[in-house]
């Protein structure tokens, strides 16, 4: 038997609610509706799912999707043993069996024919046919499927099929507003709020440049990194350059503008 507890989220992850998304997610879960979480990188999508799993007390199985992933990587495959073969469940099958929340992170990175295997689990059937094994799994009553993707940087090639999209309820995430984000950075790192607010301000500068040479603004995650460095005793301007400016761009003009913003903020 599979150990359910290994998938449980043990400690409460820090998550700051932006609007009423926690209540909405709870409603979706009560009715076992599949959920899609959209938003730019580092805005807290994965953290939110983790937090919800903790709050609902359900195991969470996370799969980071990639282009080489095949359907059998999700569903499972036969393995060889000394005296025959053995079936090994993939993460999706495991989640459906034990009643976990299955979280497919960055779903569009997987090839479209791979993602089709989740279809029967996401409508009224809630089943997963294992054709190679000749088994039909009926999903555990606690099972729920959650996917995330970042609509920002995908090309036309990488989009979800309409038939996939229309099986989910969706949350559209964005970076929290400045005050809230400062609070989050402060909470997460123990940094005092004024410095956190200054970091958030620099983050905002970069986000304003999105589409003018930047594909993505500075994420909350990077702001937390910067705060962590400052907390460790790095000079604020250096920390910002290292954690906020250098990672996101190679464009000299943008780098210079952001450097200027750093200097203007940490006067």
């Amino acid at each position, binding site marked *: 038997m599979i150990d359910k507890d290994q998938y449980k989220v043990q400690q409460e992850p820090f998550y700051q609610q932006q609007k009423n998304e926690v209540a909405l997610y709870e409603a979706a879960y009560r009715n076992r509706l599949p959920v899609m979480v959209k938003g730019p990188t580092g805005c807290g999508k994965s953290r939110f799912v983790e937090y919800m799993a903790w709050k609902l007390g359900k195991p969470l199985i996370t799969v980071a999707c990639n*282009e080489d992933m095949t359907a059998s990587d999700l569903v499972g495959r036969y393995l060889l043993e000394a005296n025959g073969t053995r079936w090994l469940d993939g993460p999706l099958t495991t989640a459906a069996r034990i009643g976990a929340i299955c979280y497919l992170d960055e779903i569009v990175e997987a090839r479209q024919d791979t993602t089709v295997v989740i279809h029967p689990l996401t409508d009224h059937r809630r089943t997963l046919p294992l054709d190679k094994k000749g088994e039909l799994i009926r999903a555990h009553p606690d099972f729920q499927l959650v996917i995330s993707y970042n609509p920002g940087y995908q090309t036309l090639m990488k989009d979800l099929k309409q038939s996939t999209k229309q099986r989910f309820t969706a949350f559209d995430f964005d970076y929290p507003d400045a005050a809230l984000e400062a609070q989050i950075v402060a909470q997460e790192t123990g940094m005092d709020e004024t410095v956190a607010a200054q970091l958030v301000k620099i983050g905002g500068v970069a986000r304003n440049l999105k589409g003018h040479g930047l594909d993505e603004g500075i994420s909350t995650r990077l702001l937390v990194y910067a705060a962590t460095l400052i907390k460790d005793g790095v000079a604020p301007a250096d920390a910002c350059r290292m954690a906020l400016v250098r990672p996101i761009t190679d464009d000299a003009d943008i780098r210079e503008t952001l450097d200027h913003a750093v200097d203007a903020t940490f006067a």
Partner: protein
Amino acid sequence: MTETVYQHPLMAAYWRQLDTRFPQVEAVFDDVMAEALAVLTRAGLDAYLEAGRVIGKLGRGVEPLLAFLEEWPSAAQAVGESALPAVMALIQRLQKSPNGRAITPFLQTLAPVARRLQSEDQLQHYLDIALDLKARTTGSIHGHHTTFPSPGLPEFFAQAPGLLAQLSIAGLGNWVEYGIRNYRGHPERQKDYFSLQSADSRAVLQRERHGTLLIDVERKLDLYLRGLWQDHDHLVPYSTAFDEIRKPIPYYDKLGIRLPDVYDDLILPSSPFPHPNPLPEGEGEKAEPKPIEREAGGEGRTRPSPGASHHPLPQAGEGKTVISGLDRYRAALAHIVGHRRWSDAQVADNWSPFQRMAVEFFEDCRVETLLIRAYPGLRKLFLALHPKPLETACDPETTSCLRHRMAMLSRALLDPAHGYIDADLLDTVQRFHAVMAHGESSTKEIAALALNYVAKTRRQSDQFARVHFADTVVDYRDDNRQLWKFIEAGDEEDAFDEPRKIEPGEEIHGLPPRHYPEWDYASQTYRPDWVSVYEALHPHGNAADIDRLLAKHGALAKRLKKMLDLLKPQDKVRIRYQEEGSELDLDVALRALIDFKGGATPDPRINMSHRTDGRDIAVMLLLDLSESLNDKAAGSEQTILELSQEAVSLLAWAIEKLGDAFAIAGFHSNTRHDVRYLHIKGYGEAFDDDVKARLAAMQAGWSTRMGAAMRHAAHTLGARRADKKLMLILTDGRPSDVDAHDERLLVEDARQAVKELDRDNIFTYCISLDPKADEYVSDIFGRQFSVIDRVERLPEQLPQLFMALTK
């Protein structure tokens, strides 16, 4: 000579020494001698009078002598008396050449030039440039000895002081060099160039300027506006170079933000203390209006005068602080953004000009306080650029001190460590901060404060005509025209861009020309906006002709088709069932092993490999349609044009089958003013009858100005979104044009165009039909070319070449 008045015997001796009889000279002689005596040494004076005597005897009238007598003492003061022989040498050279007429303008501007240059060495460079210009532009026709004076030389001397205000001596050299090179053979244009009348003269001047040019930092400033201020607008440069009397100030209106075209770096001598400098500073105390040293535009910026910029930067350490031109632009933009965010227009009619000025100063400080609140680092920048008037600098008994008071207050409102002690000022500063402590305040509230301050500190002397200007101009601030609304029409605003005159002329057909620079290899610079390219639709012919051509090459088309099928994009990324591959395909491998254990023959194809195979190519085919295409191809009955037509049709057909985005255009030129770029197929068009009709009508004529056509084609191709961009150039000869006498010029220009395209990620490839192409084509395209010797095989080779390139 009416010698009725008493003349000092010494003066009479000097007069004899000068040995001249011009009455005009006599009229001013006492005055110029007074100045000369004050400035020159004994020996210098003798040399001065001797030089004057020589100039007087040149036989060129009184003008040169008058100019010399008036200019030399002050020139000598700037560069030293020892420079006189060099000056005289130049005059002799001019006198001996047909350029005697240039002596007067040379002498007339000598003093301002000398003041700019400030050293004998520099002056020598200036004289050398003038001599070079003289030597190379003095004309001779068909072997006659020099008989025509240089048309540009007098103009050059007349412009020299203004030029040197903006250019270093090296920059001046480059500017002159450009003029000589391009207008040596064209007297009228040469005159226009050296008198700064022609557009490219100004453009080259602009390029040689010192400082930070707006066009160079425009993107950074745009990012700055968007990023830090969530604002954006057109940044419109205005020229600071040609408006000597009134220097324009930044402003904004509904058409955009106007900024000076150039800001020089500002070098601030920093002081260890942020307190007002107690040392008496000569210039700072002079009450006369300071000339434009601090004004936008950077007159003499590299050598800041003490009165202009003694504001210690609070955090500055030792040595000098440099405020970069970019930071000055940022300060100006931030200030304007502040107004756009927080200022409301006030009705101006009921307030006096003084009151309005005070309101402007207060409002400027209010928005800057709010800006600093948003980005505390701006305080340092603003304070570095803000003048710091000494409290005692203005004498209210003799001078109108209003500006001085306002500038001090403005400083005090921004600088916590201002150190002023005036009670009214301190009180007002306190009230200002009290008001601002509650929030953003408003223009109205601040205006009330300003009026109150003006009323409290009013003095009779404020009305005086003599106004204290030193250290009161804050040059990053805009002219506040948006702060006022007038109920009655006033005459106070004026725009310094001239209203555009639209002259009724002949109606323009087709698209307006686009201008492109051309590379001048000799000076290693671009000639700005040199070539005019007119784009037009290619005329139509009969589309069926092309279909017939394609039918004629049916066999070839079939062969091509086979090659095309191999090239066709296939979306498959993962290739399974491979005996050899990069990775084990686990599922297949397991199946094979199960088969094996079960006693069946296992499938050996248990590997998989990967291939990225999407084709995302944009192609531009550029056809040289110059006259030489009408020649018969060697060993063929067809002209090169006809062969090209067949080849291009086949290629177009092939690319269409492949599905790559592609466009066709032709070009030819008739001098730089008329480069024609003929649109045959655009990216959005299919290879249909319209396109075929245009191809069918292909005609050859004129010359080959390749660089301009490539730049124009790159303009379209560069805008495509594609992984790979390919520009194919089909040509039959070297780049040349009737107005380019130097045959290397256009070759080098084309080479430069290839480099530019390369920088923009456009891959250029040349297909040359010129059997002698080896001499030059690799100079232009490096190794990216093929020469097709047997032109009759072009239709076959072109598509194959394309496929080989894009495989």
